[in-house]
């Protein structure tokens, strides 16, 4: 907490100092752009009956977030972007830091909650220091933040990129206090890219990436997670031709060890890529590839895309990538009827089990969005999505078969009088979801109807911006019916010579589940955006959610159980 207070004080001094510098900024040959800010988030929850555990908190009680992201520009050739973005309380629920409250400095620095980066750049050379989210390609490395050091060099059309660092520190597993700490092994990454690139013309590059867990980085290893090691190579080729034609492709190879504690296999050269990775009994080598080819133009886009991920293909640069599927899609977008009709559509199929290690499954994917502006007053949007999934039966009498169909129709009518414009939208959505039971073969249908009516008056001579809506929602399946009706309205207006924008919203929902008594929900929110001066603004958001159950939770004392949750988010933001 002392550290947090110290940081708060430093930030407040920063605001004062930077505001003071601002008036004399023109004297310095340094140009400063970017933002800095501090935001407080508070949360409250009151559940009745107390201790009934019918509802759990979903935000931290108190949180302070800091942002300091200026870019210092020294002349035309040298720039120094800084990005210090961090929070006072750790709130990790998924991934390696889940459950961790008391962090070491190393853990705090590498926690994905926090970013600390300095990227000085001189002409075509850029130095990368601190936390970086670097995407080299879709199949090599991309969505993990890594704390370390590296460089990007782009002399002419050539490019050389390198980075190494840590995405997670070693974290000991702990069962108590609940929910415990998942734990993680320290993971170090290395990545390198070499190639040529001319923007708008082509990109050809080789990528190499490696990630390795340190087995000895924890004294209490995670229960379920094993230390891993992966090495990937990939080749990417992007080429853009005249008249909008393009081709993008990438082919990749991965060597991945699922469990570093497994023994080495001497002589297994086909599974090794020494000196980067040596084969163990848990090592697999597999391929992945993707390609898209098509044409883009103002009124017509059409493309074919295919993506194959082998059953053994893995990369530490995309830890959530799911292996073992092959996708093929055709996508199009076009405008016609003097640009009054806009259509976006795609259709394709995903199949898995190319290596025959699982049950064969296939998915059909199709979606269409058709927008027509008939005239100045009337427009219509129709969208349709179909998703079908089925597998072989395996050991069960029947295979899985799930089919989802969604149809949405949204007409919008606008008319204008001397003082205002009226906007009326009706939106109807029908969703049908069929599931087959793999034991009995019986298919059950789950049907959802949603209807939304929205009215928005726009005044020419008033600053008020209200809107009103009513929504009906019903979901039915055998022996189950869930219905809601929602009334909602919001009102916005400027005050204090338009320096402050106010917006409030009120939403009331009455819901009914089967034959239980109705439940009630009231959500009230308010936004206050105060532009204190050209560079400094104060934004606040307050929200309260009151929910009262019917008798669906059981008998007394749970009949009429309720909760009240409130949240506030308020922050100062300074633009350099």
């Amino acid at each position, binding site marked *: 907490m002392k550290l947090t207070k110290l940081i708060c004080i430093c930030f407040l001094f920063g605001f004062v100092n930077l505001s003071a510098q601002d008036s004399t900024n023109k004297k310095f040959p340094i140009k400063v752009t970017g933002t800095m800010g501090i935001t407080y988030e508070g949360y409250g929850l009151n559940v009745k009956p107390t201790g009934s555990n019918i509802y759990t908190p979903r*935000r931290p009680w108190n949180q302070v977030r800091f942002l300091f992201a200026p870019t210092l520009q020294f002349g035309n050739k040298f720039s120094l972007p800084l990005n210090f973005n961090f929070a006072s309380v750790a*709130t990790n*629920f*998924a*991934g*390696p*830091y889940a459950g961790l409250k008391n962090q070491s400095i190393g853990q705090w620095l590498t926690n*994905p*909650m926090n970013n600390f980066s300095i990227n000085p750049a001189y002409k075509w050379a850029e130095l990368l220091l601190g936390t970086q*989210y670097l995407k080299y390609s879709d199949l090599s490395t991309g*969505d993990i933040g890594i704390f370390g050091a590296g460089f990007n060099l782009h002399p002419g059309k050539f490019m050389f990129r390198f980075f190494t660092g840590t995405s997670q520190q070693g974290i000991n597993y702990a069962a108590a206090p609940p929910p415990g700490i998942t734990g993680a092994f320290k993971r170090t990454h290395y990545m390198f890219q070499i190639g040529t690139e001319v923007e708008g013309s082509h990109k050809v590059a080789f990528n190499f990436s490696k990630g390795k867990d340190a087995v000895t980085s924890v004294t209490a290893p*995670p229960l*379920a*997670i094993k230390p891993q090691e992966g090495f990937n190579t990939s080749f990417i080729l992007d080429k853009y031709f005249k008249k909008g034609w393009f081709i993008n492709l990438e082919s990749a190879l991965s060597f991945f060890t*699922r*469990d570093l*504690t497994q023994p080495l296999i*001497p002589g297994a050269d086909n*599974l090794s890529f020494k000196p980067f990775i040596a084969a*163990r*009994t*848990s090592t*697999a*080598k597999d391929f992945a590839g993707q390609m898209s080819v098509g044409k883009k133009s103002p009124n017509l886009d059409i493309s074919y*895309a295919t993506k194959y991920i082998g059953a*053994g293909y*893995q990369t530490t640069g995309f*830890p*959530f990538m*799911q292996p*073992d599927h092959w996708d093929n899609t055709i996508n199009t977008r076009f405008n016609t009827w003097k640009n009054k009709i806009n259509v*976006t559509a*795609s259709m*394709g199929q*995903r199949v*898995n089990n190319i*290596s*025959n*290690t*699982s049950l064969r499954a296939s998915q059909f*994917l199709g979606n269409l*969005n058709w927008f027509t502006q008939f005239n100045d007053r009337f427009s219509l949007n129709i969208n349709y*999505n179909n*998703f079908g*999934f089925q597998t072989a039966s395996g050991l*069960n009498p029947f295979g*899985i078969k799930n089919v989802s169909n969604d149809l949405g129709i949204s007409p919008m009518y606008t008319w204008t009088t001397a003082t205002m414009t009226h906007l009326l*939208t009706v*939106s109807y959505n029908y*969703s049908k979801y069929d599931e087959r039971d793999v034991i009995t073969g019986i298919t059950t249908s789950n049907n*959802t109807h*949603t209807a*939304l009516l929205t009215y928005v008056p726009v005044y020419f001579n008033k600053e008020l911006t209200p809107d009103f809506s009513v929504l009906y929602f019903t979901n039915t399946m055998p022996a189950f019916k*869930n219905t809601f009706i*929602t009334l*909602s309205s919001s009102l916005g207006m400027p005050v204090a010579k338009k320096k402050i924008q106010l917006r409030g919203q009120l*939403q009331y929902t009455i*819901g009914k589940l089967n034959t239980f008594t109705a439940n009630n929900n009231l*959500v009230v929110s308010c936004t206050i955006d105060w532009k204190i001066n050209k560079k400094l603004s104060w934004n606040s958001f307050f*929200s309260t959610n009151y929910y009262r159950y019917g008798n669906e939770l059981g008998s007394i004392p749970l009949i009429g159980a309720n909760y009240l949750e409130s949240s506030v988010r308020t922050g100062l933001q300074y633009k350099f």
Partner: protein
Amino acid sequence: MPEKTVYMKKNISLPLFLVVAFTANAQLNTTLNIQPTPTAVLSEWSGKNAMVTFIVTKIDSIPQQAIFKTEMKLIDGTVIGVTDITKAVPIILTKGTRVYFSKDVMPLEIMNFTGKYKAILDRTGKLPADNYQLCVQLIGQGPLGFQPLVAAKCKIFNMAALQLPILVMPANNAVLNKLSAQTAITFRWTPLIPQTQNLPTYRLQVFEVLANQQPVQALRSNQPLLDVSVKAITQYIWRPGLAFSATDSLPVKFIWTLQTSDDTGLPVIQTDGNGESRSEPFLFMIEATKRNEKKKGAGLL
């Protein structure tokens, strides 16, 4: 002539083999147990003692050296993998009962797989989905080479790699209308395959992606606005109870994922990717007007 020599040798060795085998059978009892649907990732077997147990009871008190000869076969008896017994580490059997596990009877570093099975195992770490039988036998080294000490024990099992659910709805990069989303958002996903007797638990989590955050960063660092576990079903209707401060120019962004666990509460797949059995996450946005509702497919581009 060579054929006759072989025949003669067989004739001589057969009585000797029978004597040795009979003696061994009289002194050793073995029992093999294997889970009926073990994980398809063979390297995981060594870390899970319950996967394979081989119980050896030695009745006499004379210590005896032995090694395990393990064969993986198809149902028709075709051998697809066998222990390289020349590299096997001997064990000393003494009087009493001892339990051996997968890491003892089937060390992968000395298992030789054949043909397409080796190719698939090298690529995926898994064998093709099928019915198999595992046979384990204790053998000893005698004057005539390796000889069985006891009859092989075999067990049949079915193997099919688990595939995590794939997120379906909201589709990846879907844009939802603010007013509808404030009342209810429907989540759908495909089930874990293959479906088993033990029903999986799906933990659905939705995280808000704050300004200055990358989507996966939000998933790995924020407290989820929705964190709910459901048993076996593949649809969940969420009533957010939130007032989204979305505008068309500044949509509220969310990332959602699913964690699949078994009936013991552990992730069903522990050595793939993130190790937490989390499905590949999807993004969805909430904007102020229905007119902007658009779906950019299922994230296949």
